[in-house]
């Protein structure tokens, strides 16, 4: 077969594959959003859930999901960033590093229920945090670290070595080179990693059932003092997230409109992830422009 022909065939095949994927993904998203759309209104988004009567909303769960995401990222991002920098910039290429890498990859294959039970025994029972957002955030940190570390490491590796040499040639120390030159340049792809992991945090249920709990006590949205039990900001209160709520009403829900609430909540979840992605990209772009003076 001559190279030109194979080039054409490959080209066509790639277009076909990409088109097919877009089709699957679009069908999936369309299905979720269209089945959930009839439920979406202000009332649904703001009222608390009901246990056994129709007309419940997802207000508290929605807030919990975002709050938990924020806390988890606050804990896991610095750790993953540090580990990613060390692995890519400092770690010698020997068997110890390889063992560490393998260990991190293995962690990501653990079923989330195992991570959840580990978090339950350590944080909820041993450290006496109880069923709380904090326990949930720590459990999700375990869950989130492998993927995040790996993607930060890859993003750093993608920055060409000439940039590092440039920094060193200007008399910067290695650490300064990394923080001032490499990190800003790698920002867009680090952001992709964060967004991907944020999506997983949003959608995770099994790890949270035993840690953040599956009940959403009423919150007082006028009370922003984090030390009060009914305050939305209190990290020590039990908090059911949106994904856990979807899981719960699908498995044991007895409200008459369980199916509608479930599809409505799924659509809200997908839209939240979308909003989060757009926001993160927008902020990331501004930050990137500011840090690298790129246009």
């Amino acid at each position: 077969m001559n190279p030109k022909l194979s080039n054409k065939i490959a080209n066509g095949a790639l277009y076909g594959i990409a088109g097919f994927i877009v089709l699957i993904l679009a069908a999936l998203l369309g299905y979720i959003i269209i089945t959930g759309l009839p439920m979406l209104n202000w009332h649904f988004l703001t009222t608390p859930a009901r246990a056994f009567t129709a007309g419940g909303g997802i207000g508290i769960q929605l807030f919990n999901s975002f709050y938990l995401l924020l806390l988890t990222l606050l804990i896991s991002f610095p750790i993953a960033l540090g580990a990613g920098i060390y692995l890519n910039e400092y770690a010698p290429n020997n068997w110890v590093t390889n063992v560490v890498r393998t260990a991190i990859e293995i962690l990501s294959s653990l079923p989330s229920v195992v991570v959840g039970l580990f978090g339950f025994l350590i944080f909820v029972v041993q450290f006496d945090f109880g069923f709380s957002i904090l326990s949930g955030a720590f459990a999700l940190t375990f869950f989130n670290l492998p993927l995040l570390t790996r993607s930060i490491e890859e993003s750093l590796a993608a920055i060409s070595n000439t940039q590092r040499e440039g920094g060193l040639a200007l008399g910067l120390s290695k650490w300064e080179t990394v923080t001032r030159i490499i990190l800003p340049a790698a920002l867009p792809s680090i952001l992709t990693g964060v967004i991907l992991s944020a999506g997983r945090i949003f959608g995770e249920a099994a790890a949270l059932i035993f840690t953040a709990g599956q009940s959403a006590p009423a919150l007082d949205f006028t009370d922003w003092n984090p030390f009060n039990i009914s305050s939305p900001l209190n990290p020590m209160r039990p908090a059911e997230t949106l994904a856990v709520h979807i899981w719960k009403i699908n498995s044991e829900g007895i409200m008459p409109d369980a199916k509608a609430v479930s599809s409505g909540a799924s659509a809200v979840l997908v839209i939240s992830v979308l909003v989060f992605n757009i926001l993160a990209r927008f902020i990331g772009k501004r930050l990137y422009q500011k840090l690298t003076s790129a246009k």
Partner: protein
Amino acid sequence: MRKSRWIQLVIVLVIVVLGTAGYVTRKTTHADMTITAVGSTALQPLVEAAGEEYSGQHLGTFINVQGGGSGTGLSQIQEGAVDIGNSDVFAEEQKGIKANRLVDHRVAVVGITPIVNKKVGVKRLTTAQLIKIFTGRVTNWSQLGGRHQPIVLLNRAQGSGTRMTFERWALKGARSKPAQEQDSSGMVRQIVATTPGAISYVGFSYADQSVQAITLNGVSPTDENVKTNRWPIWSYEHMYTSRTPGPLTQRFIRYIQSAHIQRTLVKQLGYISVADMHVSRDVSGRVGEK
């Protein structure tokens, strides 16, 4: 550079001041005003709803209700990590639990019924037929007078309270052959409703229009038949405490067993009130007059 230092300092100061102010003005909740109940997902809605009502009436108390399964509830109450362990089964029936260290509080009764897909064409079965179906000796609905359709068995997960009750009282102790398993009632109902030839079992409150409930030995699955034990497939919902429960735990359990909750929430959630039962049953299965 200077300016950004100042801004950082101000931000830190503001956080510290707000933090202390918040801590000083917090509403103090005493440790003995919060209790945690963990366990059975089937019982969770009832305890949760009752807990909300109770907290509404007694300001400052907080009832934290979580699921996790009957096994989790029993092992955590045994460890002393929680105040109440919710369970679908007697503690004696659960392996690894020292039941004499726990106190049983029966708060509701739940009836369980076999359900089948609506299109199998069978509405009545006998116990012998049911056993044949679940042990795999009958494999097609036509053998039972229904349509020509292979039987698809669906079980609850091993160790689940519903499955233990069903195997004990509906299959007379016979073990189901290995088959599909699901771990929640909602999922079981969904699968039975959509899979041709499917049969499984759920609590009464889950048997809705989408599936066909079975009349067993001529007795239909109703609350009235459970109360007289004519329908034998039912179980208690238990709330286990330690031998020396705290004051709030005691008060809360009395509240759930009170006539008010038994007459309102218990019924609304599809359970049968313990007070309405004409018979009682102990762990060994002996039925007595009440």
